[in-house]
């Protein structure tokens, strides 16, 4: 279903194209099978399992995958764009009052899977709920809206008004976030509310969306089956799958086997060797776009790594080529800081380390780190970061620095990363991966390098602190576009070159294996490890 009216986000623009009535006509047509070319079933083999479907709290990619197909947001990102926003449940909107007032016109004739009709009341409820329920995802809209019950209002059966204290260039991209800003069935959630939980217990395991697919069955940690929702407002003209099976298969070798035997149609998160081998197989194709994920090893700013020279030394010592072309077989590219290539604020001319053991040795000397010093790294199973740790260990060994690698489960590792242990009790390096919620360098960087994001508040596990970085992030939160980009460039330089916060290891390719005849797959760099099955077909 293609909607008219593509919109480029610009904080200065306060008018936009009206949306055609085609979408409305098609929403009426969606309830009948006329023009529907049934493509049957598509099966995705995934490594994780959906747990919590409540957009106010879920943060697993495996849950996001489900929400993306059973729900809708007010606006959507267009195709593979990280910045262009198109109408979805909102058919149009008007920005006024210097960018502080947004008025959304809500699409008519949209049904929730419960059979309830979507109105502005559901939109208001959904957005207010995301903030006021106080669950995991309340941070996202709280950045823009401090008093949701006052600032988000229904001004008609199909109009919603959002009033902001300051102009916010990222409100629309935030509303396009498929796992936080999903519009939910307020009547159903209110009916199932228990002890003021905003219907959270119900929303965790029930379908409260308006999306093209609805949950038919769910065997937890095994399989979830979606079937097409006949009354989907986007209609069913053309080729669409009528059934989607999402199978949980934790072992990558088993997922590979399923694709090769034709028992699944799509999978991801295989090893680079698997991707290479499957590229040559008939009937399969491997796509390897780049998303917004950055993998890194955070430096703990303590002890041997207190000095920025020591951290620069490690960044010089690392063999980036060995990782990217060796271990990852080309399924990764250089990361030049916390801001990935495709994100606003990335500086393509920014400083990039070249492996230089001599320089590394000199810098360690300058930092007072003597040969024979032992550094430590805790890690959990992860293809690129495991390899990176071993490469770093080998490189450091050549200049007399010992790196002790300690393996643990992901839950234990996360417990250390987010735990309350001080820097003196943490390992020297802590590997991790991150991607932003929307196309905003502040959103990407703040949780990683802001000193206020040190545990237990955020993911700055190395207790990195640089007053310049804090000041820049403070400005970036509300800066206009040109200033934001300039500040992001400065930040990138500080946390990469001047006062490294981490060894910025790589941006891994978000590779998927699909049947050759599977079309319509559109990758979006912000919606990682999820698939939109509605446009897909043979």
């Amino acid at each position, binding site marked *: 279903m293609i909607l008219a009216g593509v919109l480029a986000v610009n904080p200065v623009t306060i008018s936009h194209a009206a949306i055609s009535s085609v979408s409305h006509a098609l929403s009426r047509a969606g309830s009948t099978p006329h023009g529907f070319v049934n493509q049957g*079933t598509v*099966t995705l083999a995934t490594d994780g399992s959906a*747990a*919590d479907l409540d957009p106010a*709290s879920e*943060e697993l990619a495996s849950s996001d995958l489900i929400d993306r197909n059973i729900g809708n947001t007010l606006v959507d990102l267009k195709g593979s764009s990280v910045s262009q926003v198109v109408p979805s449940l909102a058919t149009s909107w008007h920005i006024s009052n210097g960018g502080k007032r947004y008025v959304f016109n809500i699409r008519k004739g949209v049904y929730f899977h419960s059979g309830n009709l979507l109105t502005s009341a559901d939109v208001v409820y959904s957005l207010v709920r995301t903030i006021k329920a*106080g*669950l*995991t*995802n*309340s*941070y*996202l809209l709280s950045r823009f809206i401090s008093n949701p019950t006052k600032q988000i209002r229904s001004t008609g059966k199909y109009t919603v008004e959002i009033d902001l204290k300051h102009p916010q260039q990222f409100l629309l991209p935030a509303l396009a976030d498929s796992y936080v800003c999903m519009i939910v069935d307020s009547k159903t959630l209110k009916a199932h509310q228990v002890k003021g939980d905003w219907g959270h*217990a119900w929303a*965790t*395991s029930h379908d409260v969306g308006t999306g093209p697919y609805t949950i038919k*069955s769910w*065997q*937890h*940690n*095994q*399989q979830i*089956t979606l079937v097409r929702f006949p009354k989907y407002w986007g209609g069913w003209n053309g080729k669409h799958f009528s*059934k989607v*099976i999402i*199978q*949980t*298969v*934790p*072992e990558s070798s*088993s997922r590979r*086997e*399923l694709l090769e035997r034709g*028992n*699944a149609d799509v999978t991801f998160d295989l090893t680079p060797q698997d991707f290479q081998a499957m590229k040559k197989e008939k009937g399969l194709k491997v796509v390897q776009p780049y998303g917004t994920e950055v993998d890194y090893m955070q430096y703990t700013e303590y002890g041997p790594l207190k000095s920025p020279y020591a951290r620069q030394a490690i960044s010089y010592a690392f063999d980036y080529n060995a990782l990217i072309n060796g271990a990852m077989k080309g399924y990764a590219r250089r990361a030049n800081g916390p801001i990935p290539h495709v994100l606003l604020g990335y500086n393509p001319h920014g400083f990039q380390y070249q492996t230089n053991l001599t320089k590394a040795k000199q810098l360690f000397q300058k930092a007072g780190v003597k040969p024979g010093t032992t550094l430590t790294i805790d890690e959990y199973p992860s293809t690129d970061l495991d390899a990176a740790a071993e490469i770093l260990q080998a490189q450091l060994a050549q200049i007399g620095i010992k790196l002790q690698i300690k393996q643990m*489960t*992901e*839950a*234990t590792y*996360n*417990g*250390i990363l*987010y*735990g*309350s242990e001080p820097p003196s009790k943490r390992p020297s390096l802590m590997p991790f991966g991150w991607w932003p919620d929307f196309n905003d360098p502040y959103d990407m960087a703040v*949780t990683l390098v802001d000193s206020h994001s040190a545990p*237990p*508040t*955020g*993911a700055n596990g190395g207790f990195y602190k640089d007053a310049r970085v804090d000041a820049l992030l403070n400005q970036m939160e509300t800066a206009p576009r040109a200033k934001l980009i300039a500040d992001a460039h400065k930040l990138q330089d500080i946390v990469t070159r001047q006062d490294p916060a981490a060894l910025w290891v790589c941006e891994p390719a978000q590779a998927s294996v699909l049947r050759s005849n599977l079309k319509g797959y559109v990758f979006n760099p912000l919606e990682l490890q999820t698939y939109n099955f509605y446009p897909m077909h043979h």
Partner: protein
Amino acid sequence: MTYFVARRLAFLVLVLIGISLITFFLSHVVPADPVRLFAGPRASPATIALLKHQLGLDQPLWRQYLTYIGGILHGDFGYSLLSHRPVSDDLRDYLPATIELTLAAIVLILAIGIPLGVVSAVWPGSIVDQIARVLTTTGVAIPAFWLGLMAQLVFFDLLGWLPEGGRLAANASPPPTVTGLYTVDSLLAGNLPLFAQSVVHLILPAVILAYGSLAVLTRQVRAGVLEALTQEYVRTARAKGLTRRRVVVGHALRNALVPATTVMGLQIGYLLGGALLVEDVFSWPGIGRYATLATLALDYNAVMAVTIVAAGIYVVVNLAVDLFYLVLDPRITY
């Protein structure tokens, strides 16, 4: 006997209290904050505090324990941080799969182990005895997970005879739930193709799970029957002109089954533990796999629930074994 049963049930309660105490305090000794993990890195301190309060984790340990025990008495095992729903809902989903797998393994163990042990004892040194010895040696020596992987390689990958895992094929819908056992429920629904599919999916994991215990039981039965066959009463029975079958099955085996039953009861514990590995290899969605995931995710409530349920099953099964002795040997009284 009523007193015996009552005493054993009281013992069961004590065992469960002891296990719950040990697992509760051990799981809270782990230096990690599961709520922090559950809430994610962007959760504000206020959100963490709210979640801790909702989950009762801001209370003193002793109060948390009493609340937990109070919940168990009402069938409430708390909230799973892994699945984001009540642990009792998870157990309802996962336990039948393990029961189905374990029952299938037990059927295989008894159906193969007892006859094989008897034949092996009656004809020592024969080809059947040789096969039995190989089976019993490999059964106790080879780890189940390795055997499972090799079985997948041969029967799924190379021969394509059996599926690699799961309870049903990906595009199959489970039968309407009555018992939670797909084999039984599909029969009850009159869905023979689904029954056949569920049996086929059960074959490999059940055989692998049964293999180790099959080895132990076969050896036990063989030893028991061999010993019984040297007894005076067997000689008397032969002298009376009873057929070999009657002597072996009616007299020797019956006496050999007493210690074999004890071994089998103990093997239930092994089967429950072995199910954990087998379920992981074959993606079988039972409580073993659930326990693995819960442990890795530091999900205290789920880990404790699985431990308590497994302990309860083990004690009840061994009580049943003790009562079965009364059937086997009328001389035994409690």
